């Protein structure tokens, strides 16, 4: 009993619980339709690569997981969201492919410039976008949503201009590698894992995490205590831009083309949702990076589940909404308080007896 209590009190309990809940839907469905009950979780090696729904979730969820890292920091430090990340993804992909293919060319099987130049340029322009957002928020004191609204609309448009409004294909195996497979493991999973590992190491081994949280809790007080609040907020937005750039390149390499109209479309909303599902307050302050990452994969788990259940595309958004509402309600304070009260009552009853 005490052990159970300890587990339920852990910070990550609710996000993990929600994710398991989503996956349980599949178990119920599989049993009801006469399939092996844990078919959803089976992983095998087919055609020389890892194969299974869980792998799909990890693979397809990579972009949102990478975005969630940056978004968590931005939300924590500035109590606002960066809604430009989807557009910045598209811009970064467009920049990279434009350089690799050459301006105005739509289909190449050889690089015009070395691969690393294209990738670096894509990430660099994303960082510049982050710098721009951060400058507006930290130094101009513009509301984060308004400040990032600029690049939300302009980022994709600039990407389209770079690609001359075309889908630019780069059909080179070494480019496809980053969206394909590294040995038996999908490369995006590895990239996401590296990003998460680097972020958590930096946050754990330096005081950056504490700085960000203190700025988020009270900007003025932190400044008075000697932190350069504006600089920390700026840094968070640059990291968010960097994450968007990496996610954009992953999405681009997956389809070996810069589909600037569609890459990262509405993904900012998924990233924000991931932060919320991870049990973080969108009001800033304390954050829980692991929660956000789990949140990101939960979103993908919902999508993959809907595919597995064969829910028609027209109805899928409704199901998604219901699941999201359930998860958010489970994590809300009144529900938490209710369960606390319930367990307290039980304890009292036991004592009396």
């Amino acid at each position, binding site marked *: 009993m005490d052990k159970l209590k300890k587990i339920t009190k852990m910070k990550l309990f609710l996000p993990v619980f929600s994710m398991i809940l989503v996956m349980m839907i599949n178990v119920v469905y599989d049993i009801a339709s006469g399939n092996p009950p844990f078919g959803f979780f089976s992983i095998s090696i087919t055609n020389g690569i890892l194969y299974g729904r869980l792998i799909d979730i990890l693979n397809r969820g990579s972009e949102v997981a990478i975005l969630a890292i940056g978004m968590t920091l931005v939300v924590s430090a500035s109590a606002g969201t960066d809604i430009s990340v989807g557009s910045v993804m598209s811009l970064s992909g467009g920049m990279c492919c434009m350089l690799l293919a050459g301006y105005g060319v739509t289909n190449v099987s050889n690089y015009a410039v070395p691969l690393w130049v294209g990738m670096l340029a894509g990430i660099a322009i994303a960082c510049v976008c982050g710098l721009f957002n951060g*400058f507006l928020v930290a130094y101009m004191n513009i509301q984060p949503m308004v400040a990032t609204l600029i690049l939300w609309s302009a980022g994709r448009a600039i990407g389209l201009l770079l690609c001359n409004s075309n889908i630019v*294909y780069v059909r080179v195996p070494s480019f496809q590698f980053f969206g394909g497979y590294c040995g038996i493991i999908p490369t995006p999973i590895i990239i996401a894992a590296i990003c998460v590992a680097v972020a958590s190491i930096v946050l754990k081994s330096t005081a950056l995490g504490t700085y960000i949280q203190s700025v988020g809790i009270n900007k003025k007080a932190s400044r008075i205590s000697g932190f350069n609040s504006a600089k920390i907020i700026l840094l968070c937005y640059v990291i968010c831009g960097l994450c968007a750039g990496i996610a954009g390149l992953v999405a681009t390499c997956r389809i070996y083309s810069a589909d600037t109209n569609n890459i990262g479309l509405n993904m900012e909303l998924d990233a924000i949702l991931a932060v919320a599902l991870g049990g973080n307050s969108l009001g800033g302050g304390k954050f829980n990076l692991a929660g956000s990452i789990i949140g990101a994969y939960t979103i993908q788990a919902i999508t993959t589940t809907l595919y597995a259940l064969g829910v028609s595309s027209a109805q899928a958004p409704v199901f998604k909404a219901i699941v999201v509402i359930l998860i958010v309600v489970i994590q809300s304070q009144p529900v938490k308080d209710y369960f606390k009260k319930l367990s307290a009552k039980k304890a009292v009853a036991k004592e009396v007896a």
Partner: protein
Amino acid sequence: MKKKLVGVLMCVAMTATMLAGCGNSSAPAAAPAEPAAAPAEQPAAAPAETQAAPAQAEAPEASGDVVKVGFAQVGHESDWRAANTKNYQDTFSAANGYELSFVDCDNDHAVQIETVRGFIEQELDYICIAPIQSAGWDTVLQEAQDAGIPVLIVDRAVDADASLYTTALGCDMVAEGETAGNWLAEYLDGEDANILVIEGSVGASATLGRTEGFNNIVAQNSNWTVLDSQSGDFTQAGGQEVMESFIKSYSDFNVVVCQNDNEAYGAMDAMDAAGITYGVDGDVIIISFDATHDGLQYTLDGKITCNVECNPLQAGFAEGVVKKLEAGEAVDAWTLVEDEAFVAPGIDSDYAVTMSQEVLDGRAY
């Protein structure tokens, strides 16, 4: 202070980039002024030379046999659209006795409405509109009707009373779906079909029409089963993700229908990864729509077995309508732009053209 300066510089640089961006994207909106202005000068100059009449020759009489046509195009979002635009410019050329005022509305509904108003003010003879948005056309169509200018709604549909415009023309998406189904029936020749469908964006007219048309044929074949049907949003990434999931859910499919070429590319990637063979020599038949240049290359290579076209070369049909109107004949309320279908080399079909390098080279886009 130095760092602040750097910050300011970065900000200026970004703003400059964005302004440059805006400048470019607004170029098409500004451009109409030129083609609109140019024709205004030309007719004035031409009659002046040939007829030695006063320079200010009254327009309708003097312009004689030159037919003035305005075309408010959607934008330039795809290869398909570019081919569509070029086709109009080639067909309604000066050599053919037309004067085309072409305006690229850059996917902006408001710009398009204003463009059409401009056409009405310029008293053009015919107005072609490829509506960006189906709603909100009543007022401006009424204005055109009051001015006595025939309006052709091309490519897409409008939600307005049919009496407000002269005629509409475009592809029949239901017919495209039926062509795909008919071809499949002919190709399978009575064999069973277990079909997976990757639909386009939910609610798009192409999605609805192609689904309906294909399902009409499915209903006629009792041994055909549609196992599942999910949206891939007309994108390669969407097609890839949906196909990945289909492969895990179903092991016994032999037909994949992708409602555009991009989804087909994604589906092929997913099948490659899972080691499933497709195409003429493989286990799975892929049917795709749009017949873009890249898509037809895959058809030629035998990967996409059947590719049904959505024809962008519509100007010929529009010209036919204009000629009829010029001759004072009645026109139908709806003109169908005919689509073709293409099948991989080695297949003969009553419904489709067999692909070859010459066919691909002969394509306009």
